[in-house]
């Protein structure tokens, strides 16, 4: 600091002292008054905030702490996305607290379950067929916790499963492909053959295709991988080269590779679990969709009624998303951009088939 600055400072200080001696008392009184008032008003506002934040969600019958676990990826735009959306629906519909975990490797399923069981969750929802047996095993040690396996086929005193009849929707997609395929050749690409629900989907798809056109060829490929887009793409290219012009993929992230290949080669694809038209609006004709809003209604109905029993629910087809007068949780997504491209007679036939399946006129076995 230079001497001049210092001098200015001193002069300023001197002037400030004079001013302060006059103004300070007045300012002090005003300041104290303002601080007191604002302090009271802030405290009052804060108290109100605290009161309002402590209120429980209006829709919750009781507060439940839920863990939603899956080996899928929330980012797969299909199976994993369904898990996240279902959890979000539980939060918004029931007001429960939900924790999420995706990308659990198959070998770690049991330890993950045990870990969450030890963290005082009331309900543990495990999404994926592979979770069945580990859940049964862990559930025995934690009888106070309710376990739910989505797409599972296991049950015990505190374990219930939901095994949607996806083959009914797959049947409809197969029939649509059979009606639309110019080459009378369609394909199915699945993540892993050992999953019985996947096998069911394929069988339903094949049955529907043959129902529409008995000469339709149906390719069947399993990737042995759910997350590798390249594998999905390679498998799709192989089927396209064989003449397949409609492809149903049920392979999570790897399935996006199938859609990408179909888009590149101008053939069509079907989405699975979620409406995947967004991934390629010009390629994905429609999708079979699991309805997250209704998926767990039956379970929470039992829990809230204190009559939880080890049941395997097998909800089937519903007409549209969140059809309140139906038990089904599987529906066919809108055609979006294909609405005007699919001939009306085919659309009429397709609608009729939906009705027949819903009315059990057509039964698609497991």
């Amino acid at each position, binding site marked *: *600091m230079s001497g001049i600055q*210092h001098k200015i*400072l*001193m002069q*300023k*200080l001197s002037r400030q002292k004079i001013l302060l001696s006059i103004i300070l008392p007045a300012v002090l009184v005003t300041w104290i008054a303002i601080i007191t008032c*604002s*302090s009271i*008003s*802030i*405290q009052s*506002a*804060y108290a109100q905030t605290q009161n309002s934040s402590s209120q429980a969600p209006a829709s919750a019958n009781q507060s439940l702490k839920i863990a939603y676990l899956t080996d899928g*990826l*929330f*980012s797969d*735009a*299909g199976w994993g*996305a*369904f898990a*996240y*959306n279902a959890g*979000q*629906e539980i*939060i*918004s519909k029931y007001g429960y607290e939900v924790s*999420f975990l*995706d990308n659990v490797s198959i070998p770690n399923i049991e330890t993950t379950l045990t870990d969450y069981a030890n963290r005082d969750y009331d309900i543990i929802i495990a999404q994926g067929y592979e979770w069945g047996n580990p859940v049964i095993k862990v559930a025995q040690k934690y009888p106070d916790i309710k376990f739910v396996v989505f797409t599972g086929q296991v049950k015990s005193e505190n374990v219930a499963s939901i095994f949607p009849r996806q083959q009914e929707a797959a049947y409809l997609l197969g029939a649509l492909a059979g009606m639309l395929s110019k080459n009378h050749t369609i394909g199915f690409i699945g993540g892993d053959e050992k999953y019985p629900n996947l096998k069911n989907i394929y069988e339903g798809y094949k049955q529907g295709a043959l129902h529409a056109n008995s000469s339709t060829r149906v390719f069947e490929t399993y990737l042995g991988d759910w997350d590798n887009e390249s594998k999905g793409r390679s498998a799709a290219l192989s089927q396209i080269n064989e003449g397949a012009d409609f492809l149903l993929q049920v392979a999570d992230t790897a399935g996006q590779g199938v859609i990408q290949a179909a888009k590149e080669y101008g053939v069509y694809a079907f989405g699975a679990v*979620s*409406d*995947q*038209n*967004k*991934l*390629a*609006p*010009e390629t994905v004709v429609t999708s079979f969709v699991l309805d*997250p809003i209704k998926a767990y209604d039956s379970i929470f109905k039992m829990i809230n009624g204190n009559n939880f029993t080890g049941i395997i629910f097998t909800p089937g087809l519903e007409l549209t998303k969140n059809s309140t007068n139906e038990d089904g949780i599987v529906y066919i997504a809108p055609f979006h951009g294909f609405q005007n491209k699919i001939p009306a007679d085919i659309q009429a036939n397709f609608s009729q088939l939906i009705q027949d399946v819903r009315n059990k006129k057509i039964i698609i076995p497991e």
Partner: protein
Amino acid sequence: MTLISGKLMYIGVISVIIIAVASYGLFFYFQRINETSIRESIFEQELDRQIKSTTSISQHIGSDLRLVTAMLQQLADSTYLQNEMLSGDNVTKLLEEKFEQLNTVTKVDSLLITDKEGIITNQEVSKGLKTFVNIDISSNEYMKQTRETHQPVYSNGFTGIDGKYRIVITYPIISIHDGHYIGTVAATLPSIQFFKNYGNVNDINSQFLVAFDTKASLLAVGASNDLVGKNFFGNETQRFINYNEVLNNLTHHLLAGNTGYAMYDYGRGERLNTQAPILVGSKPVYFLQIVTPTDRIYLKINSVLFSEGVKMFSLLTGTTAAIIVLVFLLRKWYSILQDEVKKRTSDLNKSNYKLMAANESLKTKDEAQNQFINIAAHELRTPIQPIINAIYLLQSPNLSQQKRNQYMDIIKRNTEKLGRLAEDILDVTKIESNSLKLMDEKIDLYDLIVNSIEDFKRNIQLIYKDLIVTYEGLDKPIFVKGDRLRLNQVMQNLLDNAGKFTKQGSITVRTQLESNMVKVLVRDTGIGIHPEIFSKLFSKFVTKSDRGTGLGLFIARSIVQAHGGRIWAESGSNVGATFIFTLPLSDQDSDEHNVRDST
């Protein structure tokens, strides 16, 4: 004697020390007051600067948020979205472009489109992140608000599917044809990275930034990243800030939309906190605090003060050094001056002594001169009167021849005396004016002494009939260099002097050789030398004789000394006196003598 007395000097030194200590004490006292004033002033400046800076940063953030909103509006108003094409290649391309554009403004890690049901239909994300197409985000508060209000929303913080803490800016896609809600575009911003653009969000020890959403959740906090996502008034944060009441009140004030500042210490050092709401339009959407460890400010202030202190110290040291040097020089000068005064005083004293001595000498000379004149006048008058009387008597007509001869003899004798007196006075005058000229010839002193004795005997044979004069010295030539007449005058004076004080008895003259000198002794058996005059025996006009001029011994000493010899007297009480003088032998005589001695 010194110019300043010791006591005065002591008082002076003590006074200087007291004045110096008092001056330095006052200087440091005022310096301290000065420093305090400067410290307060600089702190106020820093506070003012930080308040302005905080407002400026909040305005900057608000401006960036408005810019992001404007870009989202452009996207929502694009032809594809207006035609409800929320996915597909064209939309993806548009999304990519807009995503890149947004990232030139601030860090946006995801740009997404949802349909009217809140399901993500398309998403562009930063490298390394996953897309979440088909994820239903409709239950999020910001989506509900966007859908209900058809207005852009600046969300509170939330933890995304991937666990990252973010804020979202949404913009509704509203049909420009009929105003129906088509969906939402939204940009997600990682809260820490977003606020990092505007300040430190990692280091508690520097000035850092704290950002809140409307529910007091921490979006970024430089004090600890672990607190991000936590509610400020929640237990974890409150424990961290040690339930600091000042900070809590300040934050309440901020969340009510007010600016302000406070200082507090919640156990990690004193902090200065300035705050301002982040406004978009007139609505506060987020809230900002800038927190500075005051030790940083004080460090800065101290740095300024230290710099000033060094300058002042240098000035003080320089002045002190100059004063010390000046004092030293003055003291040195004083010392030199005192020495000079001492020297001059000493010289003056010496001169005074010399002058006094000279004065005394002059007085003595003057007295001697007066005495001389008196004596000379008396001595001159003494023979004149008998001459006059004799002349008167000679003029008598009946004067016998015997009487006539007797009177003529009186005239002759007194005239001769007058003549001797005149010669003596002339000699003394010559001696005192250093104009006595001596011959430098080889003289046989033996011969001279013997002749002098003979002359003396002849002169006194009628006056002192009972006086015996003998020579008992060397009976061979003794050569000296000098003036024969003057040395004869010395011998005559000494013999005449001895005769005057002996009258009856004997006078013995001796000669002795000593080294290269010859010693001549004239011893008498007279009345001896009166003690009163012994010490000034060789001065002028000193005599106890009623006949002498008192100049004889003075003249004798002057002649002996002029020949390189010495003269002195020895006397017992009433047992006679001995006058001794020495003369250097001439070289030849000395050699001969030495040869004779050696033979």
